[in-house]
């Protein structure tokens, strides 16, 4: 099997006259066929800090929810600042009104009481375990997406096959030769214009050889060449989609642009932070509500912008843990356990809250007072990988996890 290195060295040799790469043609063929090899594009959004799932997807039908949160609870449907009812028991936080239409179109699914079996309340450990895909273990150095990509890569992979937005590449992408991006518009080598072609040529020659540093340099040079052809400043989202004006919103917008530009994108990661609401969380209004609005509006914009491609896109959201059932003394909540994940796309069993609701009565809680986990996050991600990304070898993607229990979240 030809290696990524052969693609890159070939790419550099022909950098000046890069004809349409073979991976581009190949991907187009993959898309137009309805073959078993056809793969969705997967977009993973990580809410960093432990999002309070109980206030994101509100169990308004559970009276214990209201007993635990006399200040922070979202009112039952029908009042001011009330939850938006989904199925008579659960509702969306009112700031997520942008998602209601997607729910009604049955293209948004929720999995509640979902997460990692590991009891840790450490952000760093919990994120680490979730992104490695090995709860409780730090011995595996790669991420679940990195392993999936390594197992499914072709001879002619695009340098944009996997993209992570942010200054630091998401740990889930480690091991998969992913590209970290912050802005497509400024993604170019900036040297004196008169000398630029010759400087680029010399620069490319300096990055010959092997090793992590040189490899990253070569990948960057290949990526620069592709972006040069894209004209990112002129991008217009489809159907009036309006992304939030934030790093998260910009990341989603650029993911959509890359998808529509056919650069071979298959996996994209983006983050949204500020979920660690120990104090001043607020209920229907306040700090978390504002953050949720940005979160939901971004998802809605992405959904609208990609409407023509939805049949081959799956979006999944996650957070390293949820938050404690009871509010604390500072108007917030402490680190918890079970949480809500969203899955959106054209092939999602939407309009339903999947999983088993364990209840919030004191003896139903986990540890110091957290929501139980009744669906392992690997069941959610594993089902998407197997059914939508065409990779049934889940033992490599999630080593050490044998008893997958798909919930029927996606078709395929």
């Amino acid at each position, binding site marked *: 099997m030809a290696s990524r290195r052969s693609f890159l060295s070939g790419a550099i040799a022909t950098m000046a006259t890069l004809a349409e790469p073979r991976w581009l043609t190949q991907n187009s063929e993959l898309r137009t066929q309805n073959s078993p090899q056809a793969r969705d594009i997967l977009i993973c959004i990580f809410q960093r800090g432990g999002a309070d799932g109980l206030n994101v997807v509100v169990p308004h039908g559970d009276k214990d929810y209201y007993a635990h949160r006399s200040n922070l609870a979202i009112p039952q449907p029908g009042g001011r600042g009330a939850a938006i009812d989904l199925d008579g028991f659960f509702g969306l936080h009112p700031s997520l009104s942008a998602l209601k239409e997607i729910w009604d179109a049955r293209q948004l699914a929720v999995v509640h009481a979902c997460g990692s079996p590991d009891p840790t309340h*450490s952000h*760093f450990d919990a994120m680490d375990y979730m992104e490695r895909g090995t709860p409780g273990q730090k011995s595996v150095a790669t991420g679940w997406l990195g392993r999936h990509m390594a197992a499914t890569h072709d001879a002619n992979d695009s340098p944009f096959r996997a993209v992570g937005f942010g200054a630091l590449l998401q740990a889930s992408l480690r091991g998969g030769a992913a590209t970290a991006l912050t802005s497509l518009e400024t993604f170019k080598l900036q*040297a004196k214009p008169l000398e630029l072609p010759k400087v680029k040529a010399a620069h490319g020659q300096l990055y010959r050889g092997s090793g992590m540093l040189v490899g990253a340099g070569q990948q*960057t040079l290949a990526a620069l060449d592709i972006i040069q052809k894209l004209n990112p400043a002129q991008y217009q989202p489809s159907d009036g989609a309006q992304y939030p004006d934030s790093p998260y919103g910009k990341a989603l917008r650029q993911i959509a642009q890359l998808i529509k530009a056919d650069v071979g994108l298959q996996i994209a990661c983006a983050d949204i932070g500020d979920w660690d609401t120990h104090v001043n969380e607020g209920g229907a209004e306040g700090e978390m509500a504002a953050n949720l609005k940005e979160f939901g509006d971004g998802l809605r914009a992405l959904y609208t912008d990609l409407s023509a491609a939805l049949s081959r896109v799956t979006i999944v959201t996650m957070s390293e843990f949820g938050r404690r059932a009871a509010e604390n003394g500072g108007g917030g909540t402490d680190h918890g356990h079970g949480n809500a994940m969203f899955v959106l796309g054209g092939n999602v069993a939407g309009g339903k809250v999947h999983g088993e609701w364990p209840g919030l009565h004191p003896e139903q809680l986990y540890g110091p007072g957290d929501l139980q986990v009744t669906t392992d996050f690997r069941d959610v991600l594993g089902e998407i990988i197997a059914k939508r990304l065409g990779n049934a070898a889940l033992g490599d993607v999630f080593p050490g996890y044998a008893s997958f229990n798909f919930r029927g979240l996606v078709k395929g």
Partner: protein
Amino acid sequence: MVSRRQFLRNSGLAAVYLALPAWLTACSRGDAAPAAQRLVQPEVWDDPQPGAHPEIVHLLNRITYGPRPGEVEQVARSGWDAFLDRQLHPERIDDSALDDQLKEFKTLTMSSADLFDAYPPKGMPGPRIIIQELEAAALLRAIYSERQLFEIMVDFWSNHFNIFIGKNQVKWLKTADDRDVIRTHAFGKFRDLLLASAKSPAMLIYLDNAENVKPGSRFGRKDSGLNENYAREVMELHTVGVDAGYTQDDVTTVARALTGWTITRRNADDAGEFQFVPRLHDDGEKRIPFLDLTLPQGGGITDGETLLARLAAHPGTAARIARKLCMAFVSDDPPPALVARAAQAYLDSDTDTRATLDVILRSDEFKAAAGQKIKLPLRALVSKMRALGANIAGDGPKAALPLVQQLRDIGQAFFAWQAPNGYPQVGAAWVNTGGMLGRWNLAFALAEGRVRGVERDLRHFVPSGVAAVGALTDAVGTALLHAPLPAPARAALVGYMSDGRDDQATLDQPVLDRKLPELVGLILASPAFQTH
């Protein structure tokens, strides 16, 4: 000593006068500056031995942010040991040139209360100025301080005790933390640094311990109670680490021990200072099994002080601090034997940073580790500035802002990391497509003089009488890398400079003027300059 005018004439430069770097300016004032400041001598530019003094180059690449022009030769003359000794005793180093510059930065020496008064939240200019001055000062110190090892340790501890300056009141409080906690204790005892950090108003707000109170006590208008955030992070990140064997119960007990550690109100005369409030403190007995510690009832503030002292002296803390220091100075995966010796030195010296550093920096493992680390973005930027001998034109914090923005663009702005774990300290975390492109573009921006306010004179790197492309390339390469260019790299650079001719080709002045910045940029962007 050589005057500035004589220097320029001797090095064969046409006389375009540019502001010279502060460390050079001190010489020309005729101050009785110590030998380390008289770095630039004419003969340095004609160093005939590329690759001489590799052990000095390695030392400078680790205990400073990178050699300045002529510095390798200067340090070689005074000697490896002498230079290390000096850097281990920053109090003996005269940094008055930089200190004078920083006097313009009024906020650095103001109390938190005065900062609240002078820069009210909804006023103009608001706390933005405080943040600007702190960031600019941190960057200027990294580039220009003679106490380089001290500044590296300030950055190390700032990351270890990470505080995000954007959170609420922290904007007004981080200045005091930087000055009175980090900079005061960076070369002292870790137990003093830990205690100062625990009482630091900036930390009390950042990790919410200011709101950690005895359940049921009235605090503000809300019912209130324990907040475990700081208790968890002080153990997980600041001291013993997550594998030390503490349980959730221990975290809760530690939180109880630290209740009532809060800060004075904003409208108080001494706003923003540490305050222990007994009625908010849980005074019951506390047992912390993994520390083998029982804090008896009625301990008051000593509950927290005793606990923190015990954490500082814990072997788990020693091992973690030792490992982090070895990662910072030796390699990303340091030899366990060295880590163990450093941990022992930490314990034997009653948690002394300087004593621990001494063991690490004099070790064989350190000496053998040249070139094994990838530069983090901060070091990438600062080492480029130092290698160029670049100057920042103008005084006051605003002059440095364009360069501060460059640092932000490559992802390592000071005090901007939001999570308590601080910026990743291994190069691999930063080696990705966006990160590489950022460094390359910074290299060309600095080399071409496109960063507003940054001045450099590249003709310092062109020895007099050199005309051939090959010799020119060698001279510039040696001046920046302090080692010979590897043959393939040299060929690529000679090819660029000569437009495909060979290394005997000569260049007209206009062509040299156009290509020299690009040559410098290419070298600063090359793999060799990304490692140290």
